[in-house]
């Protein structure tokens, strides 16, 4: 190449000198002569050049790819650099420029008011929000020692899904570790501050508490393995003992100031269990003595507590179809919803989640007394659009009021599971229920191709499945029988640890067994009249309450039942959507479950609350985030996002800094919880 260039250069020089002559033709001729000469001289050279050109051509695609990648990388790095060099308050400026000045976070605001850290704070995380890390695993999990399998990025769930499912599952017989696998909860505040990067759970609350002076010595995350039944966390990890010891230590090192406990979701039940455990004598209990709670606890601020269970748990166990609370759907709903993968994925998820005893703690408790019978339910007459209409003009509301009177007759929330829409809606006298309990389960359906994905449905024959469907309608009471029927092993394990009834006589010595401790209807609160119990939850979001099921198109490896998503309510405001009846709640827990105990069951001196512990209901009306910049909102009422609700955080901080429930303003109610509670006929 340099050769040709030089030649050209010489040629150009020549041309330059010739220019003086300014005879264009001649130049052209010269040029052509030159060309001729060159042609004669080096035809071979030309060929070479062409070949080289061809080579260039071949490479140019790769070249330009590289070039492109290089460009993208460089730009990316540049942006990254700029982003990092940007002052960290910049996003806030932008947000404020668009939406106007943001309110101070509650921590800052209350610090200005002069509040400082006083009582030590204990967080009790709920189901699925706590991280789990690997301590011992099979070969496929090599290199994952002390890495999070649950929480964090879930990278492993995608990289080696089967391995992941295997390690997340518990032993099907014992409900404890399978041999050779040890998966343990992450400890410390990091256990549940963020569920995934960027998806806060406790982080906002922690940050606000830190503003008024809290730090690790006065804040404690009572992390536990949420897959285990509550008593098993003590058996395997001594978690309850650790919580007891830690609370004692915090109270002692903070000048005897009692702890404020903040459980969330299933943590509410876990802490109920703890309170009974800690006062019960060893070996079953913690041996703290009858006044442990009154000595160490100032207030229990339950956030979104599923005291009486959640209907979602039923559908989760029945067909692995619950929404966010139940299990793996939380990770990638799109992926699971996809029909192609669905068969295997849902089966695996079901298999995995059925080994987790803790999910059974959230099966609706209290049976038909609480959740309603075939023709009755405490929530009947609820209009999902009612509160929205209050804000509209009155004419519209009166119109739809008449409309709703017809729907009032239809919605039977008591029927938690019904097969077919007519079963959900027709009066009970018209439904022909065929008892399934004695039905022959029939031939074992499982054929060898499904063997690797075990669910108990394979032990059921087609007759059993049909029998289940022919019973048509299940209430909170018969749902238990249903689960017993379809998943006998799981329920056998679960019923050793949980109970779902209502106690007739709380003094019966059988209630000293730990299986009753997490059911508020079968335990007494500890005798500690100074404790305050808050029930704090979001309202204003439709929440799953009852389901319409159908049988799956027959295929032996399928889960035989699924929610019939083809059923829709008649008008836009109906409670029925995609085969699910919804009521008021925080998207996961219906108001009834979250509020009843504090609104009625424990209000004043009742048999469940013999020492008259004061209770408060604090509801937070849901307002969706105004724009994308707000993230998950500062006024959200949904089950997890409520932890970022400024009003709720403010309440917590005030109590932690020493305020009582009266100081906060007592009850704060938006829903009909008191009306509904009155309808429940329960001896108190």
């Amino acid at each position, binding site marked *: 190449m340099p050769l040709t260039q030089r030649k050209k250069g010489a040629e150009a020089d020549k041309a330059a000198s010739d220019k003086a002559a300014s005879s264009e033709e001649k130049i052209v001729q010269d*040029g052509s002569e030159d*060309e001729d000469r060159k042609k004669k001289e080096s035809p071979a050279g030309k060929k070479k050049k062409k070949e080289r050109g061809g080579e260039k051509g071949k490479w140019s695609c790769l070249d330009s790819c590289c070039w492109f990648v290089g460009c993208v990388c*460089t730009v990316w790095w540049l942006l990254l650099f700029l982003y990092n060099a940007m002052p960290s308050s910049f996003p806030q400026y932008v947000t404020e420029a668009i939406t106007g000045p943001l309110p101070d976070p509650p921590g800052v605001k209350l610090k200005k008011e002069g509040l400082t850290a006083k009582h030590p704070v204990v967080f009790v995380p709920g189901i699925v929000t706590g991280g789990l890390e690997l301590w011992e695993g099979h070969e496929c999990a090599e290199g994952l020692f002390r890495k999070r399998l649950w929480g964090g990025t879930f990278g492993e769930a995608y990289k080696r899904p089967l391995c992941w499912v295997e390690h997340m599952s518990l032993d099907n017989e014992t409900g404890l570790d399978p041999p050779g696998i040890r998966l343990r909860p992450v*400890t410390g505040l990091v256990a549940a501050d963020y569920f995934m990067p960027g998806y806060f759970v406790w982080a906002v609350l922690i940050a606000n508490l830190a503003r008024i002076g809290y730090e690790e010595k006065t804040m404690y995350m009572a992390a536990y393995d949420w897959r285990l039944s509550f008593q098993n966390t003590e058996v395997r990890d001594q978690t309850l003992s650790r919580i007891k010891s830690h609370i004692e230590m915090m109270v002692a090192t903070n000048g005897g100031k009692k702890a404020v406990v903040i459980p969330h979701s299933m943590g509410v039940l876990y802490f109920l269990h703890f309170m009974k455990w800690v006062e019960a004598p060893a070996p079953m209990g913690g041996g703290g003595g009858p006044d442990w709670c009154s000595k160490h606890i100032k207030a229990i601020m339950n956030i979104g507590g599923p005291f009486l269970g959640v209907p979602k748990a039923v559908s989760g166990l029945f067909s692995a179809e619950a929404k966010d609370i139940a299990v793996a759907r939380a990770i990638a709903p799109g992926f699971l919803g996809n029909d192609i993968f669905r068969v295997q994925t849902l089966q695996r998820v079901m298999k995995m989640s059925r080994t987790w005893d803790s999910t059974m703690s959230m099966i609706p408790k209290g049976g038909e007394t609480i959740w309603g019978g075939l023709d009755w339910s405490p929530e009947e007459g609820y209009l999902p659009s009612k509160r929205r209409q209050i804000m509209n003009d009155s004419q519209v509301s009166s119109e739809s009021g008449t409309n709703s009177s017809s729907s009032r007759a239809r919605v039977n929330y008591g029927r938690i599971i019904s097969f077919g829409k007519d079963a959900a809606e027709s009066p009970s006298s018209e439904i022909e229920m065929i008892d399934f309990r004695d039905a022959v389960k029939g031939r074992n359906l499982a054929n060898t191709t499904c063997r690797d994905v075990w669910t108990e449905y394979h032990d059921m024959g087609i007759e059993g499945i049909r029998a289940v469907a022919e019973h048509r309608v299940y209430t909170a009471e018969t749902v238990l029988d249903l689960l017993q029927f379809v998943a006998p092993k799981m329920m056998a394990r679960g019923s050793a640890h949980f109970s779902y009834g209502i106690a007739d006589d709380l003094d019966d010595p059988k209630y000293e067994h730990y299986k009753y401790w997490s059911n508020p209807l079968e335990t007494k609160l500890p005798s500690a009249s100074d404790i305050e119990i808050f029930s704090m939850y979001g309202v204003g979001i439709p929440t799953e309450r009852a389901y319409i099921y159908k049988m799956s198109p027959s295929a032996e490896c399928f889960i035989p039942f699924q929610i019939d998503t083809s059923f829709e309510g008649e008008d836009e405001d109906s409670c029925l959507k995609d085969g699910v009846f919804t009521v008021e709640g925080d998207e996961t827990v219906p108001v009834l479950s979250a509020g009843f105990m504090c609104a009625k069951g424990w209000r004043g001196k009742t048999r469940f609350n013999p020492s008259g512990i004061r209770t408060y209901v604090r509801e937070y009306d849901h307002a969706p985030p105004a724009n994308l910049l707000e993230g998950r909102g500062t006024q959200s009422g949904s089950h997890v996002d409520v932890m970022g609700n400024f009003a709720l955080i403010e309440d917590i901080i005030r109590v932690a800094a020493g305020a009582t429930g009266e100081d906060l303003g007592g009850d704060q109610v938006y829903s009909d919880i008191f009306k509904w509670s009155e309808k429940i006929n329960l001896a108190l």
Partner: protein
Amino acid sequence: MGSVLRLRKLCYVEPVKFQSFESIKNAEKQQQQQQQQEERTVSEVENAVQKNGRDDDEDTKKKKEGKKKMKEWRCIDSCCWVIGCLCTVWWLLVFLYYSLPAALPGFQPPESPGARLGREGVRALHPVVLVPGISTGGLELWEGKPCTEGLFRKRLWGGSFTEILKRPLCWLEHLSLDNETGLDPPGIRVRAVPGLVAADYFAPGYFVWAVLIQNLAKIGYEEKNMHMAAYDWRLSFQNTETRDQALSRLKSTIELMYLTNGRKKVVVVPHSMGVLYFLHFLKWVELPPPMGGGGGPGWCATHIKAIMNIGPPFLGVPKAVSNILSSEAKDVAVIRSMDPGVLDSEILGLQTLEHAMRVARTWDSIISLVPKGGETIWGDLDWSPEEGHGCSLAKRRTLQSSGNNKNSNHTNGKRTFSAMKDLAKYGRIISFGKEASYIPSSQLPSVDLKELLLGKPSTISNSTCQEVWTEYNELSRESIRDVADNKVYTSQTLLDLLRFVAPKMMKRAEAHFSHGIADDLNDPKYNHYKYWSNPLEMRLPGAPDMEIYCLYGVGIPTERSYVYKMSPTGKCKSIPFRIDSTAEGYEDSCLKGGVYFVDGDESVPVLSSGFMCARGWRGKTRFNPSGATTYVREYQHRPPASLLEGRGSASGAHVDIMGNVAFIEDVLRVAAGATGEEIGGDRIYSDIMRMSERINIQL
């Protein structure tokens, strides 16, 4: 592709200046070329081609303009291209790396001691408590000045240290403590990271406890029977209790683990400064409140099975002195551990070292590492327990093991050994000038130390120096010269020196630490917490069944005493003293770069780590009235054979020893229930027994 070809062609005619000519010629050339190319093609096409050629006339003009632009861009283009290539190759490699099977068929990594012992049936038995040392524990921010926005609960110390580079001054400000109280400055709360994550890795990829934790996990340990007693290592030991109740928490955790693990006693594994911290804890826990933890006199006997001290600086480390004096110590001390390159460079050096010194001087804990026991232990002007130590000894051993010409080395070693004998006077921990470090004491200038050091230093106030405050700024040039004129400091006079140059720091810290030897341990003054971390001024608790191990590496030259000089410039920014790195001994001498070396683990000399177990506590002594058994376990240093080994599985270095296979095996066996006798009693490579014998201390 065509355009690329044409572009290339254009590039060949770059130097041409005359457009008209060039374009015509070009056009023709093109025409001809095309003709040539298509000679064999049908003539119908020819017309069209000619037309094209004419059109190209204008095209080329346009292209020429484009070409100029292209020329400008070419460099950037090729940059992009190179970056693109690199990225692609990198990703490919990463992808391949990830898709590799975990264990290559040909390459079998050595089995970890945990897995091996697990197979032998060794199972978790006693709960284990890990106590990290100085600077290895992470610190995170809980409350800060506006400059730290967005760093809430992010690590300021440990992890990737990105904040130092991003906002160095802010970072330094937040890591400093209050100069008066030794506690948090107002408006700043930096707290220790709790849990095993506190010190498993110091920086990504640089393990501290991680290997040990992993091996313990292999025999069944998990978080319920393994606890990391993280504390804020910047504070004095008693202040960790005052501010964070760290000692109470440790007590409560040990009690809990003892109870929940079937009343199995705890095995404590402290490392480095953690050893002193745990000594402090032993005294604290048994003494009554308010100063102590109120555990009662039997607490240790009930709860502790063994204390396995790793690289224990029981009697302090000389490094701490040089660190305080001129912030020049190596890895144990503080900031240099991160990027020595930056600190060593002269341009940045002055300011950086000043800043580092200012920050480090607010940390009381460093004072706990100043040599204890004075001249009795560390030697005086003419005597030291280590005298006669041959520095080539250690080197020779390692060379032998790697099989390098033994003969020449052997003779070499012998020669220098005898030469060294009368040279190294280790007792002179700091000497000004190389000469002062070896001339007989009679020739030393006799300046009255007491008068000099106890006199009030004359101060100067120079307003230009205010921004980087170190106490040197308050010292006048004359007092500095006086200090240097005294020539030689032993470990006893050293304390006076420190008091002289850093009065505030020493005043603060000496309320928390003491460095003497007790004459009468029954004196009630020894119930004060300042004596608890000095093994020569405290009694071990009454726990005859408790075992105490001293586990440390040997075979690495370790700093023992320094040759100092005055800094050349009198500018206020510079620290007035520095190690005279030009002072070199003979080839194999113990003097290198202004520092005399002895045997040790690179940070702690053998004397400091081994003496208490080898003699001070051996049998029933006044320091160990109940006769708790002690064991000395040394691990001969062997550098990693290849790069693949990383930091080596037989290292004896202060931190790397935590990855030493023999060491891990010892810890695992003891945790699984073995006694010191069962793992083989003493295991000694160094001269520690002989050295200890030379020390004249009443036991």
